């Protein structure tokens, strides 16, 4: 297939996703898809076409990196996992046919289905072939190797980034002084590489402008995360994740700032009125992992049946600090810190303590009654520590953990009914 044809077909796949988001935007289902988040994601996908129409390049990146530099360099940042999560979250089993194609071609079942659909769709001729790839080698082996498979299939220029194991914070027992300089240098190198690829230099003023917008959004999201600690919890269970996905794709865009301010104001007003997201909050749960993306109304069922609200989850715990914009060097350093602290990467890239300490803190601060681990089957690193974590939560805080297996992207291995049964048994026991 010619490159032009491949691009057109790939655009058709994104177009389908955008049309679905546009449909939801015009026909809101506010209890499941937050209208403001849908608006942002719809605009993000629309920008993919706007950039293409202007002859601009597309860069594929992974969910443990951050898009500010790409916006500053006027390259469209296509977050691969936003596509697979988006396809799953339609609830229409849209990832599954692509997963099957990839597996039939020999991709092992145990590799992650957050990345596999792109392989399947590319093999089918449906995927957008990017111009460049940048990926931070975190949070797991599966992501690392699947991005290398993208390299191998697409044969486009790519820039992998090696994310260190150790901590950058001198207060941490796992601190290492080389961590931050090592990653910062790689980000600088990535900019040089991208300048060479695009033939355009990064404008430091433009970068500063983009990062300041990103900071403004993040300051609001940090406030939202504080407000979520209130009893009753002001915003519904899906909100922390919505905040994350908007920032992941749109950090540095004015729409992201508007979104974050809107959510912050909504949360603040509700806290002021002591109004909860659900009428009679009975259970406050911390969701120890990613959402079960293929069943976006699961939390609604939990709220209606048990009065349960998810007060915080792994991806929503987006606690990166605003970046010092006093110089380009400081910006690179701040972006490196942000990459080290990206949700999921922050917990999963290093020793078990990163994960365990975060959740003890989170469960304590958010006054959780229980914790739920929807263990994505291919996340071997998390399955390798959940028992240590559950033990720590029980010992330190006296709270119980439900751990169940699921493929968050594929509705078939563990269907919604099984998940509901596990949650029901758990809530019935602890209530």
């Amino acid at each position: 297939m010619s490159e032009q044809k491949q691009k057109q077909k790939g655009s058709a796949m994104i177009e389908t996703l955008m049309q679905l988001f546009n449909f939801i935007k015009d026909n809101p289902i506010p209890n499941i898809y937050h209208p403001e988040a849908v608006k942002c994601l719809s605009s993000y996908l629309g920008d993919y076409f706007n950039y293409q129409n202007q002859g601009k390049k597309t860069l594929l990146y992974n969910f443990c990196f951050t898009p500010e530099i790409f916006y500053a360099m006027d390259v469209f940042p296509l977050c691969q996992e936003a596509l697979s999560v988006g396809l799953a979250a339609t609830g229409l089993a849209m990832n599954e046919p692509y997963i099957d194609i990839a597996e039939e071609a020999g991709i092992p079942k145990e590799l992650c289905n957050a990345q596999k659909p792109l392989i399947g769709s590319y093999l089918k001729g449906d995927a957008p072939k990017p111009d460049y790839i940048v990926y931070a080698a975190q949070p797991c082996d599966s992501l690392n190797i699947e991005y290398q498979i993208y390299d191998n299939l697409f044969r486009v220029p790519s820039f992998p980034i090696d994310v260190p194991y150790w901590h950058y914070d001198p207060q941490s027992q796992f601190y290492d002084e080389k961590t931050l300089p090592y990653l910062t240098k790689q980000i600088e190198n990535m900019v040089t590489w991208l300048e060479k690829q695009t033939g355009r230099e990064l404008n430091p003023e433009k970068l500063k402008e983009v990062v300041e917008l990103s900071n403004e959004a993040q300051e609001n999201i940090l406030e939202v995360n504080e407000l979520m600690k209130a009893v009753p919890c002001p915003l519904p269970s899906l909100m922390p994740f919505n905040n994350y996905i908007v920032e992941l794709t749109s950090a540095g865009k004015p729409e992201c700032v508007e979104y974050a301010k809107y959510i912050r104001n909504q949360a603040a007003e509700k806290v002021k009125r002591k109004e909860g997201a659900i009428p009679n909050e009975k259970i406050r749960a911390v969701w120890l992992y990613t959402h079960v993306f293929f069943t976006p109304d699961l939390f609604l069922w939990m709220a209606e049946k048990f009065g349960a609200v998810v007060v915080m989850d792994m991806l929503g715990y987006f606690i990166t600090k605003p970046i010092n914009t006093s110089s380009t060097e400081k910006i690179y350093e701040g972006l490196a810190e942000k990459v080290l602290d990206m949700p999921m990467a922050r917990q999963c890239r290093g020793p078990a303590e990163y994960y365990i300490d975060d959740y003890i803190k989170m469960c304590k601060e958010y006054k959780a009654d229980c914790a739920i681990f929807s263990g994505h089957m291919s996340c071997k690193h998390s399955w390798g520590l959940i028992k240590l974590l559950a033990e720590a939560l029980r010992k330190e805080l006296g709270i119980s953990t439900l751990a169940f297996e699921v493929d968050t992207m594929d509705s078939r291995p563990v269907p919604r009914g099984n998940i509901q049964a596990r949650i029901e048994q758990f809530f019935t026991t602890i209530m």
Partner: protein
Amino acid sequence: MKTLQLFIEASHSISNSWINSWKDKGYILGYFCTHVPEEVVYAADILPVRIRAVGCRETSLADAYLSSFNCSFVRCSLELALEKQYHFLDGIISCNSCDHIRRGYDVWKHKVGTPFKHFLQVPRMISDEALEAFKHEITVLKKSLENYFKIDISEEKLRDSIMVYNDTRKLLKELYDMRKNGSPKISGSEFLSVITAGTAIPKHQLKLLLNQLLNELLEREGYSDYRARLMIVGSLLDAPQYIQTIEDMGGLVVADALCFGSRYFWDLVKEKGDPISNLAEKYLKKVPCARMIGEHDTRLRYVLDTVKEFDVEGVIFQRMKFCDFWGGECFMFRRELRERGVPFLELEREYILSGAEAMKTRVQAFLESIESRRT
């Protein structure tokens, strides 16, 4: 073949007579993965022993902490540690080889009472920055050993250690090269026994044993009655009986790209210059494991060169279930080797070997397909 028999017997157990003798006078450290620079440990007069899980039959203790989605090698290793079969270790060194080993180490650290524990961060890429970062990590390891065991690892000690390790690597290479000709003096399963046993033998003694073995093999008539010359690639494999199953069917394994194999001894450490820098360079730039990002083409080239050099007629890619890196590599290798006309067989396995009959059926079909190409 007295010496070969010694190796074969030693490969059947995680402990051996050399370990027992060493334990009487000194410390022993276990380490996961070939990215750990053993020379630093040996220079401290401590015996480094690579963690294996031979003898493990079930994983009930380890499964209390790890899950069925974790690699069975790591679960089996942890099982032996929790059963106190690794009681002879005074310490453990792990690294970020893969997610399974990382988490296996986390549990080991918290639940097994091994006194000294150290984690080595190994960069996943080859670059100037990565090399600097790795030098720093090796220096931290050295200091950590010095502080804990109250010893001094002098530059001279390091150089001596590097030299003896290089000597054993050269001898292993000599042994490996004996498989190039039409009648290899040593089979694939025997070679794997030598390598696995050698990871738990002090290198000064290993050097003597390898010299003895090379001499004994000179007298040996080579293997010539085989159906096909094979290469084995993929995940960690320390079970000679796995290769024996293939060889019993007539496929002679003449080469490999395994971490308990050629990737263990292929590259030498430079002996001139700063020892830490030289160790960092060797252990970062050695024939890459699938954990090394952006190195697929190097791995492919290594396999293709070996296929040519050792007159390999088919490649068996064995991968441990849930091993992401080698699982993904397998997808790429399958396409690329087949495109180049190299027969390719993929086998999935668990650490505790089972399903021999299914494996035999597939190997039989593979050998037949290779034979049919000749006619």
